[in-house]
């Protein structure tokens, strides 16, 4: 992975935007002090991390993966199991869990090498679902925890009550802030990494293998190598999201494998704009707002969510980020013929 050419426009511009966004979120707790709201923003960070990486993998590298929640789970379970079974310190377990996700992605990526398009989707889905079913139907007690049976991978109840970041002792009443800034740090790393990848050489290579593998090959860009890199790098950051998820919620369970969750996060990516830079953030934010709004409508919650998905995708097929770009262009320069 080569250093980005910082003198070039796009990387610089987007990095600045990224830094601004991160700074804004860093200052947010000054304005928003409710624990519930801060908790919601933490959730936003986590889903946004997953969405950003999914966008790099699917939107830029063209890999139609449905295993992203598996990588989240790998990070979450990895962290929980590391702390519970290996006695690791939370801060050590998190990066280790992320690395575990990357290694898993390496294997899955290699399995997917000869596949294209929807076949990748199915293979990744099959692997994730197989692991899901094996986890929840496991009844063998690996150890006993407080007189309760604890399966190796947590069974259908998952892992809970393990050590978290430890901010309760440090900050007492303000422990949420500790979690907030920790997750924000992970979010910041992801944002900056994704921007650098998308607008650097790696992103160019990814888009080359996405758009025209034959031509890319003739220019020395090995499709297999870059596909695996895409899988591994995005999985590392996705696993990181999963690990901080587990540390924040003190829970890692099979609900991460729910098909509805998968669809939910996928729609964040698509509504935001597949292949854009900031789409995932916009999409995540929007979907969370819709869900929040829908919750307030009580019974009509699912109806609203479902309708929202349909409407967004029909009205804005290229996603919100594209719409935003087009809008900005129009406001700036009037009617310029596009490319």
């Amino acid at each position, binding site marked *: 992975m080569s250093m980005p050419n910082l003198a070039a426009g796009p990387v610089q511009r987007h990095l600045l935007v990224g830094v601004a966004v991160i700074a804004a979120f860093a200052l947010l707790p000054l304005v928003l002090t409710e624990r519930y709201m801060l908790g919601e923003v933490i959730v936003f960070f986590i889903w946004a991390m997953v969405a950003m990486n999914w966008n790099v993998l699917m939107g830029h590298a063209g890999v*139609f993966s449905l295993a992203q929640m598996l990588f989240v789970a790998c990070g979450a379970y990895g962290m929980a199991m590391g702390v519970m079974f290996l006695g690791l310190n939370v801060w050590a377990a998190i990066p280790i869990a992320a690395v575990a996700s990357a290694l898993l992605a390496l294997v899955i990526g290699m*399995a997917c090498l*000869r*596949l*294209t398009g*929807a*076949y990748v989707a*199915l*293979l990744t*889905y*099959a*692997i994730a*679902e*197989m692991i899901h*079913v*094996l986890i929840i*139907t496991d009844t063998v007690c690996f150890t006993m925890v407080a007189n309760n049976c604890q399966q190796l991978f947590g069974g259908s109840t998952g892992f809970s009550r393990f050590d978290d970041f430890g901010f309760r002792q440090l900050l007492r009443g303000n422990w949420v802030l500790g979690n907030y800034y920790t997750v924000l740090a992970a979010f910041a790393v992801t944002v900056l990494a994704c921007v650098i990848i998308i607008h650097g050489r790696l992103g160019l290579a990814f888009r080359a293998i996405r758009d*025209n593998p*034959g*031509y890319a090959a003739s220019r020395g860009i090995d499709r297999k190598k870059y596909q695996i890199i895409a899988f591994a790098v995005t999985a590392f950051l996705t696993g990181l999201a999963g690990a901080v998820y587990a540390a924040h919620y003190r829970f890692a369970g099979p609900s991460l494998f729910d*098909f*509805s969750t998968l*669809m939910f996060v*996928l*729609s964040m990516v*698509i*509504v935001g704009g*597949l292949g854009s830079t900031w789409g995932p953030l916009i999409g995540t934010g929007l979907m969370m707002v819709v869900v929040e709004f829908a919750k307030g409508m009580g*019974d009509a919650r*699912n*109806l609203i*969510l*479902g*309708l*929202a*998905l*349909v409407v*967004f*995708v*029909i009205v804005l*097929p*290229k996603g919100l980020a594209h719409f935003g770009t087009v809008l900005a262009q129009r406001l700036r320069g009037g009617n310029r013929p596009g490319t």
Partner: protein
Amino acid sequence: MEIIIQIIVTGLTMGSMYALAAVGLSLIYGTLGMFNMAHGMFMTLGAYAVFTMSSAIGLPLILGIVVAMAAGALIGMATHLLMVRFMLNSPEFETNILVATAGLAIVLEDLVLKTYGGYPYPQPVRIEGIMRIGGVAVTYQAMVILAVAAVCICAVAWLLLRTKFGRAIRATAINRDAAQLMGVRTGTVYLQVMALAGALAGVAGLMISTLTTLSPQMGGDPLLKAFVICVVAGLGNVWGAGVCAFGLALLESAIGFYFGVRFGFPVMLMLVIIVLIWRPLGLFGREKVVRL
């Protein structure tokens, strides 16, 4: 020996339902290039439609099948007319339609939940009674399911291979532009495919509900399995989907008997993984010509 028969019976029964679902799904993918995430709900609506009508007026099985087909066909056509046809020409169609049909499925499931509640009603339109084959108890309903599936699939095969209607569908699936040059109204073809696939899904749903019970989420599992089958067969290959449906169902059945039901689905998935790694285009899939 008894176990073998039992495995075969279970496998054929499940395979029948999977085949009905998978053939429709494959038809939709092959012709419109669309992953229909709402296919499970098409099945569910077929089952509930029959339940409703039979609660009102009492239906013999034959009519039940007709109602299920009609319900499925209607929802299929509505999906096309109200949603799909507006999205067809955008380059992001493949991913967008996935999200859109997923959204539709969420809406439909919620509507079913609100209309009927979550109570697991049994499906009244079924045939009771058992017979014995080689010492194994086989329900008449299982035989009905197999027979219905066989008839439906043969009918679809005949339609696709021997009629002008079917030729137009196949032609549109292979090369839409060329089909238009022949005077085919491809918009109508799409509508017809959605109706046909919907009808098959409706029947599948009815059959599934006779074995278990009705519930708003009943379509989720069959949908997943139908997808798996379609991809293993090779996307768009309708015959392959039918064959693989039975193959995978027999395998799932065998694994279930020998190792425990718990392993049925995961092993099926394991098989999918192996198949796809060995044959990246599915068992019967063919390489599409890729131009630089």
